[in-house]
């Protein structure tokens, strides 16, 4: 089994599915000969031809809208938005059409497609290249929003996303693209969508997180394990719909919940998780739910980005504070 980065695993998932499903087509800005700005689609055009790997003009609304038309015609588009900060022009297509097509036609037309995009900060990118905007998408019923946190999960979840009968927004944490290498079998095995992944079991506190923050959460859990503190770390992975059963089971077990995400705090997915846990497990809680998140500020330019992104220290303090309640 080959050891590979997340971006290589994403590339491999594309290639597997394109080889096994002739209807899969890749489109986006610079995805062809250039292989995408992060190289997620490198080599695909050479291997599968320019009809199946198409560079689009520089227009995100067009990319999303074109993907809808393709999907309704039976092509399976895997479309790339170059950075999540550029999603705004595509929101009309996503919200007004992609998320609604099945519902508004009573299932006559459907929209099985994947819209991939780099998510979050941490790589010293320019302005508008580091945003975490998942809440914008999770607020729209009719979409799935998925965010992998390791090469193997990126491979398996991307395959699941392409095979899903509904539109899937696939958020790829830029900070993890080349962060680690992991053995990933190129076996075409999809991972379950709509499910959390328990990355580390524990009994004192549940850390619920996703994307690049899983790495920091695992570090915090490891650090505190030395002090006899046992943290469970849950990668939500599917941000819409959320697998609340796994989260609630964990909170009932540990009695303490720390939510960690990179996105700004207000009206974010963490708020939804906190509210739902309060509704269903308030009396199992031994302490108030706490959040460690990006601040409610504009994502700063990169000199300050690590002041914004939740740090190991903030997460460790969040754990300690929750345990001290």
């Amino acid at each position, binding site marked *: 089994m080959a050891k590979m980065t997340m971006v290589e695993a994403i590339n491999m998932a594309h290639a597997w599915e394109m080889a096994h499903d002739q209807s899969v087509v890749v489109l986006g800005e610079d995805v062809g000969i250039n292989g995408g700005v992060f190289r997620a689609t490198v080599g695909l055009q050479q291997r599968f031809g320019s009809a199946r790997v*198409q560079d689009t003009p520089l*227009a995100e*609304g067009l990319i999303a809208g074109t993907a809808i*038309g393709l999907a309704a015609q039976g092509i399976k588009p895997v479309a790339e938005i170059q950075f999540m900060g550029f999603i705004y022009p595509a929101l009309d297509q996503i919200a007004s059409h992609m998320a609604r097509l099945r519902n508004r036609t009573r299932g006559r*037309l459907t929209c099985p497609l994947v819209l991939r995009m780099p998510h979050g900060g941490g790589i010293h990118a320019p302005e508008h290249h580091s945003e975490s905007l998942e809440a914008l998408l999770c607020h729209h019923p009719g979409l799935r929003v998925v965010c992998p946190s390791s090469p193997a999960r990126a491979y398996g979840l991307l395959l699941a996303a392409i095979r899903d009968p*509904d539109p899937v927004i696939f958020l790829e944490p830029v900070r993890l693209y080349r962060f680690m290498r992991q053995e990933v079998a190129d076996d075409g095995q999809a991972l379950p969508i709509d499910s959390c992944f328990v990355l580390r079991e524990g009994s004192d506190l549940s850390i619920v997180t996703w994307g690049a923050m899983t790495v920091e959460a695992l570090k915090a859990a490891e650090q505190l394990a030395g002090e006899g503190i046992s943290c469970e770390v849950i990668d939500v992975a599917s941000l819409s719909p959320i697998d609340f059963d796994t989260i609630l089971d964990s909170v009932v077990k540990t009695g303490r919940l720390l939510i960690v995400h990179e996105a700004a705090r207000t009206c974010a997915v963490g708020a939804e998780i906190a509210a739902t846990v309060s509704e269903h497990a308030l009396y199992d809680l031994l302490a108030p739910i706490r959040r460690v998140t990006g601040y409610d500020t504009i994502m700063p330019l990169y000199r300050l980005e690590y002041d914004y992104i939740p740090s190991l220290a903030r997460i460790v303090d969040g754990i300690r504070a929750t345990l001290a309640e």
Partner: protein
Amino acid sequence: MSERPAAARTTAARFEIPYRACLSADGRLLAENVRALADPSLLQRMYRMMLRARIFDAKAVNLQRTGKLGTYPSCLGQEATHVAVGAAMRAEDVLFTVYREIGTKFWRGVDMYRVLLYWGGDERGTIYEHSAQDFPFCVPIGSQMPQAAGAAMAMKIRGEPRCVLAFIGDGGTSQGAFYEAINFAGARELPLVCVIVNNRWAISVPVERQTAAQTLAQKAVAAGIPAVQVDGNDALIVHQVTVEALERARRGEGPSVIEALTYRLADHTTSDDATRYRSAEEVQAAWAVEPLVRLRRFLEERGLWDEPAEQATKRECAEQVEAAVRQYLSTPRQSTDAMFDYLLAELPPALQSQRDEARRYAALRG
């Protein structure tokens, strides 16, 4: 892209927009070279469908006025463009519309009852039994265009001799999505024909206030694709240019844009009052060039139509419309579950409790 000319000052590129018409407002033939002239039955069918659209339209407005239908956008005055485009398309082509083009939908087999259901607040109004790949009405202006380009791209990828026809209004040509789509279609030679229904008004804003462009057709010039402006109240020329554009697209020669000049004789929708922003004189002048009278006169002169045919067709249309209205009014609303049934292929567990809650309260409401 062209090379730089070796001159201090010359012309880099030159463009022109042809204008075409076939039938004058009083039904005289201005051009012989249109194909519909060779098919009297097609001419009669187009006229009948225009009548049906007009009769349906009046009924729909009445239903809204009497509280039996939601807000409804009348197609009054634009029937020639809508019907002739339908007649020019093939069954296997795919149609994208805005929200007025009932003449096109009827031609493609959409039941009048479905259109009433849609404007009567029921998603089942978008179920099209006979044109199952056509998209439903598109309310967010211009947003159908990138999807139309995508559908055309699918046809091109598969090498199918099919085309996409996408309508847009004059107002829609102000949207970026319009330009993005025709630009992309041009760059990829996609089988896409875009028909701009220039009815002169984007709700209360006349086309002169929307753009400084002399024509809307010329917006296609920037996308590098051919465009033509036609008399949109002339079913014969609309049919002709649409057939030509679809044939061109079907041959793999790429997209084109047709601007059909017509007029919105009614208010924008039943919620609008156009007397607030346009003069009675202007509307009166537009009535003088409306599309049905000229086609009827022309058909009568050719011996293809007469008063008994007119009366019989009106009666028949009225009966069909009444039958559709009865079916619409007797259709029970969907169950509460319908909100959840088509959200995703399978309802996620997290939503099942919301469905149960909706069911409980719907049962209480009775």
